[in-house]
């Protein structure tokens, strides 16, 4: 079928497409695309459009964050100081490393190195799991301290920090209630992020399996590339979440 299409305007295709790329017919090539380049670019473009929707999806929460941070700054400071900077920083580094291996995986797929591809994908997965593990630990701590928003939310620690061995200024009770909004946004934003991570990890497992079977070793790398875009996007969200949630007013109070 491809040949029939090319035949309708042979000179242009010959010069423009075939001159640039070697024309290999792959089994993954879909009939409705004229060329594999067209298919590949369509897939990349489609993935980017999907990421646009993700930007707007997180955008709604980022706006809520911006608004309430300005309204209830003191509560946000106290809430932020409840988070552990070492854990947050470590997680940032872990995620960046995971993204780095993902980028290398894309490279390995493009240069058709199957073994490297599988190794990099597994490394990506491992660092991703490490991130989720640290996150789970942080969530668990919040659970024990009754900092999960909802009926069991407890403001005692913010109203009377000295009793808990904290050196922060006590918050007025009305402001302390607003810490709940901080923590809601914290859980909503990191939770949505973690959900994206989990979906990504699931996909990674599947891709690793396919890579192991050699599906991406013949030049068909679109799934790896597009998953890479998704994974890096999830990284980017975290790059913003980290300073916004962990690093509010961390310098010593004077």
């Amino acid at each position, binding site marked *: 079928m491809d040949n029939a299409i090319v035949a309708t305007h042979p000179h242009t295709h010959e010069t423009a497409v075939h001159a640039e790329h070697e024309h290999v017919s792959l089994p993954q090539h879909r009939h409705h695309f004229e060329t594999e380049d067209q298919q590949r670019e369509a897939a990349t473009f489609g993935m980017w459009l999907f990421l646009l929707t993700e930007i707007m999806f997180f955008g709604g929460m980022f706006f809520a964050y911006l608004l309430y941070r300005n309204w209830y700054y*003191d509560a946000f400071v106290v809430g932020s100081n409840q988070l552990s900077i070492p854990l947050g920083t470590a997680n940032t580094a872990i995620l960046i490393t995971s993204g780095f291996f993902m980028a290398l995986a894309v490279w390995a797929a493009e240069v058709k190195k199957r073994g490297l591809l599988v190794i990099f994908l597994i490394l990506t997965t491992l660092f991703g799991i490490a991130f989720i593990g640290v996150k789970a630990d942080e969530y668990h701590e919040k659970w024990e301290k009754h900092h999960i928003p909802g009926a069991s939310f407890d403001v005692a620690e913010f109203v009377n920090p000295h009793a808990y061995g904290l050196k922060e200024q006590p*918050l*007025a*009770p*009305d*402001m302390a*209630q607003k810490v709940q909004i901080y923590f809601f946004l914290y859980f909503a934003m990191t939770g949505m992020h973690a959900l994206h991570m989990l979906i990504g990890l699931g996909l990674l497992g599947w891709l690793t399996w396919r890579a192991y079977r050699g599906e991406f070793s013949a030049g068909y790398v679109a799934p790896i590339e597009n998953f890479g875009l998704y994974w890096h996007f999830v990284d980017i969200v975290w790059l913003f979440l980290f300073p916004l949630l962990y690093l509010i007013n961390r310098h010593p109070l004077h």
Partner: protein
Amino acid sequence: MHISPVLWEFLVKWLNNSALFPREASTIAPYADALYFFLLTITMVGLVLVGVLVFGFSIRYRQSRSPEATQVEGSTLLEATWTIIPLALFLIVFVWGALLYFRIYNPPTNAMNIYIVGKQWMWKAEHPGGQHEINALHVPIGRPVQLTMISQDVFHSFSIPDFRVKREVIPGRYSTEWFEATTPGTYHIFCTQYCGTNHSAMIGTVTAMTPDDYAKWTQESTSGMSLAQNGERLFASMGCNACHSGSAAARGPNLAGVYGSKLQLTSGSEVLVNDAYLRDAILNPSEHVTAGFAPIMPTYQGQISEDGLVDLVEYIKNLQTNYRVQQTLTTLQSNQAAPTTPGVVKP
């Protein structure tokens, strides 16, 4: 054709009792209607224009008369015409509409104030003189009336179509609207924002009266205690006067004459003290700490109803001196029976 007289009578009665255009019963109504008729005129002209074009061309260029179409690419001049003329018209509408908006939402300074508390599914009107009404509102004609409104639960909307005013009644925030009734009569109050099961039952009547009738009504329907008096009692029973005692050494700022003043806050900003500020300062005190005072005031969120807040706000608004505060304070501390002087309230 013969129409049965019974049916005829029924029809006439039916049509007579129905309305096609709302009454103009406030000073704003003619302004709103003027813009409405201007917009109607534009719409009609536009519609007729489109109609003439479509039907004119359809008749002139129907296939039997014009078997062959003449291809035309377009015309920049025509495009510009129907870009610029609608744009100009719409901009006129924008300016006119904005002016009307500010006329409707900018209350005159001499407006009398009535509080409206909306809740599922009734309207409570609280007059400063202590008249309480449910699903009803009595106002004098010829005098601007401002409504300070708040919702206890969900969004409501206070609409009086014959006055052409309407505004959302918001939970957690005062909103205002004002009108000046011109014609005595009764008019509909509707809640126009969907608010749950009995949304369509959240209606009432506003009765506009001549100043004499209104004075009479005020006399007859007072509950005996003004809002400020209620507020005074709350002020004492909630212990506000323990800190806001008005003395120089008090832990809270002096509230006498605070209403309408500009207040310096610890956060550095300067605010105008109005109803909304007073209400918010009671519920979220730590965001409104007056400069020079410690943030020690507890929150009263959840401990006081919107009606109570209205009373307190009205009380503080009317505090011109510390006399009252100290009176209540003494009364409370000595645990004596209430003084009998009119206007001073039992604790």
